[in-house]
């Protein structure tokens, strides 16, 4: 069952400088969310400045012409709001959740930093230390983080998906103010941004204010292209990490399609069939029946370019990683050899549909979904027929995509072995 356009009366506007604006009113609670999606992430970086997209996300909170250092969040919180941001391989998203009375202030804050961000050596030096601390937290002292970093470097040889979003430590240390200024001029222009406002507001007044505030910001120059080439994988690749952990772990990755490829929807269902819920195939087989793993989880998210379908196995202490791998590969082979029974396929479709609906149940969730659809699929309207597109997927589709994605020569395997690296 498709989502109905009348339930999502999104107004599409744009400004002459290229800024895309999407407005969706909902008067049920006195709150709003504003998302600003910039089409820039780690895929737009190069060796030497890896991590600059994420570092820059931090820099965006350090002051602009009208609102000095510390003022962005201070003003926002004083008006009953909060902000956050995230950086991915493909995009950088900023959001504010706030009491609806604060809308004029929020638009002023956001447009001011797009127009006139302050980038100075002092704030860069400080933010660099914060990011290094974040890297120590998320990667250097975190098993999932260190394995994920190894997976990127293993699965991609030429594409920028090769390096971690947070960047290599030596690059974080080396990024200069000039790098940041160039980066801002290039990627933070209005023509590279989609602003999504959802919640309790009057659309004409909101658009008029956005036009007044964002309109004078000049469009940027043409955006540099991304080197998207990646040679075909011609054999299994392996990496090993030794770390003093309690138990081994295995991360297996297969290069998959980009987010706009229809096969991505099929992989969403495969992801669900394998690891969503306790009855999912990998949970049932590897966690409950064979007792090899504490957890078995699949990560597949849409990316602009062909990305990764990853399977993470946290093994029980003492389990031989080869045994767990073998069981995993048997489950993947079963997907390739036999069609998914109708009951399992329907289960996966129901779960994906429910997940989509739950994601739309909050103001922030609606704003994020609208923006993500715009950025990844080119239009927010793509979300309306997603339930129908999932519903139309057949067991034969699942088998075909599994056969295409999971052959042995496309495997990338990172194994965590408990223990120290010998000096």
């Amino acid at each position, binding site marked *: 069952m498709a989502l109905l356009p009348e*339930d999502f009366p999104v107004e599409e506007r744009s400004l002459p400088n290229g800024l895309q604006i999407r407005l969706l009113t909902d008067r*049920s*609670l006195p*709150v709003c969310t504003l998302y600003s999606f910039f089409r820039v992430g780690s895929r737009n970086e190069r060796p030497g400045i890896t991590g600059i997209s994420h570092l820059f996300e931090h820099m965006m909170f350090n002051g602009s012409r009208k609102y000095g250092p510390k003022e962005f*969040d*201070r003003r926002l*919180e*004083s*008006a*009953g*709001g*909060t*902000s956050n941001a995230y950086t991915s391989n493909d995009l950088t998203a900023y959001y504010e*959740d*706030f*009491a609806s009375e*604060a809308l004029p202030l929020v638009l002023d804050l956001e447009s001011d930093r797009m127009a006139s961000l302050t980038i100075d050596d002092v704030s860069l*030096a*400080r*933010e*660099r*230390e*914060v*990011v290094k*601390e*974040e890297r*120590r*937290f998320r990667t*250097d*002292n*975190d*098993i999932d983080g260190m394995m994920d970093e190894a997976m990127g470097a293993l699965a991609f040889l030429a594409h920028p998906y090769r390096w971690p979003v947070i960047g290599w430590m030596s690059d974080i240390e080396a990024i200069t103010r000039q790098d940041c200024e160039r980066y801002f001029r290039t990627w933070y222009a209005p023509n590279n941004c989609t602003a999504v406002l959802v919640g309790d507001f009057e659309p004409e007044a909101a658009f008029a204010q956005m036009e007044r505030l964002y309109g004078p910001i000049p469009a940027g120059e043409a955006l540099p292209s991304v080197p998207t080439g990646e040679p075909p994988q011609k054999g299994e690749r392996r990496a090993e990490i030794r770390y*003093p*952990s*309690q*138990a081994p772990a295995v991360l297996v990755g297969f290069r998959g399609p980009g987010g706009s490829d229809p096969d991505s929807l099929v992989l969403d269902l495969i992801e669900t069939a394998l690891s*969503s*819920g*306790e*009855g999912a195939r990998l949970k*049932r087989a590897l*966690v*409950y029946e064979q*007792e090899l793993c*504490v*957890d078995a989880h699949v990560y597949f998210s849409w990316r602009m370019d062909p990305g990764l379908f990853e399977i993470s196995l*946290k093994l*029980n*202490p003492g389990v031989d990683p080869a045994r767990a791998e073998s069981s995993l590969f048997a489950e993947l082979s079963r997907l390739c050899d036999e069609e998914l029974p109708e009951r399992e396929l*329907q*289960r996966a479709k*129901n*779960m*994906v*549909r*429910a997940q989509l*609906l*739950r994601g739309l*149940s909050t*103001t922030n969730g609606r704003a994020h979904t609208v923006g993500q659809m715009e950025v990844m699929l080119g239009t927010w309207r793509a979300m309306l027929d997603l339930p129908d597109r999932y519903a139309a997927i057949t067991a034969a589709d699942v088998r075909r995509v599994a056969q295409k994605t999971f052959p042995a020569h496309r495997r990338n395997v990172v194994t965590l072995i408990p223990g120290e690296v010998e000096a």
Partner: protein
Amino acid sequence: MSWTDVALPPLLIEKLPSGLTLLAIQRRGLPLFHARLSLPAGACEDPKGKAGLAQFTVDLLRRGTRRRPAHDVDDLIESMGAQLAAEVSSEEAALALTVPAELREQALDALLEVALEPAFEQSEVAAARRRTVAGLQSDLDEPAAVAGRAVVTLGYGPGHPYAHPAAGFRREVETFQREDAAGFHATRYQQQGAVLAVVGQSPPEELIEVSKKKLGQWQASWPGHSQRAALHFSALLPGQGLRAVVVHKPDATQAQVRIVAPGLPRTTSRYAEAVVTNTALGGGFTSLLVDAIRVDRGLSYSVNTRLYMNRRAGLSVFSSFTRNETLRELVDVALEKMSAYAKAGPAEDALEKARRYLAGLFPLGLESHEALAEQVADVLLDGLGLDHLRMYRSRIAAVKAEQAREVAAELSPARDGAQIIVVGEADIARRALNGLCPVDVRQLEEFG
């Protein structure tokens, strides 16, 4: 500050003769139905020597019922597109699921079957024990998780019903038998003190009727009423002087830091003052501590203070992390800032900012079906009444500087008797804390 209070959506509450409270909330919009059953079977009810039994029991509920084996229970729930949440807090066990609106009766049947008719098959109990023990060992790889477990264990102190993580300890979980889980279920899964909350598109009267019909059909499945021994909650008193516990995590290049002192229970009459005062100190992104530690010094990525407000006791907790080389600097800055705050309380502009921040964001916590059911059910379980939510904004707005000052002194994580907990390389941490206070080094396994 002129915030209007937030109107709750249409709802009905009915206390049934069995002692169960039925709560029905109308949420228009998306065609979803949510049900949440809260039972007085939380971690504080774990018997002595059986820490983790409440969590173990709730985990076992879905591993087979008297009507169907575990895999069929999974199919029953997940074929509806739902995932069953099975949670244990200090006070309650809760089962919850969200389904498409047209499946509301099937969802209630599934929820009640799982909650009331677990089979506790011997083989499933043994397998769950192995899984839980392996999971607890695996959790020791996450320094932040270890720090969280140490906070409740050390913060509440020996003998306190809250002084263990809900998941328990390996050494105690290894002793769990079928009789432990079945006995816990028989005595704690009672209608007296339970809340069934449902949220859907229909008017609350209709939701109440549907729920009562279903409860009636499952009435005979409830465990018989049995008397439970009352729990003893001794007052939390800070010890003498500052002391530190270092939990040794080999090879860590970063230290997780917590500073813990007794706090206030959720039922305190000074709830609003406590929340506002804590927000100015270490909540949000512009608090005193975020400014001092992250923004001004770049010492950490994450800094906060949090009130662990359980129903009958609470803790006041500072949390952060930093690289090994700056551990002492971070601890010194945190203690200095928090000590000064305990004396002076928040500045007037910081107080106003905290009030507006909390009031402005409050409605967001009532948005989703899941959050709405949990928030309203919790105020009923805590005996706070709906006004706790309805008048939240005006109570926050009414907090005065003098009240904030008093609470700041009482709640400071840095006051005399506080404990510093560090999860990191023991030798490095011990050297860093040298001269500050006595340091006790513990092994990681003690907290797993």
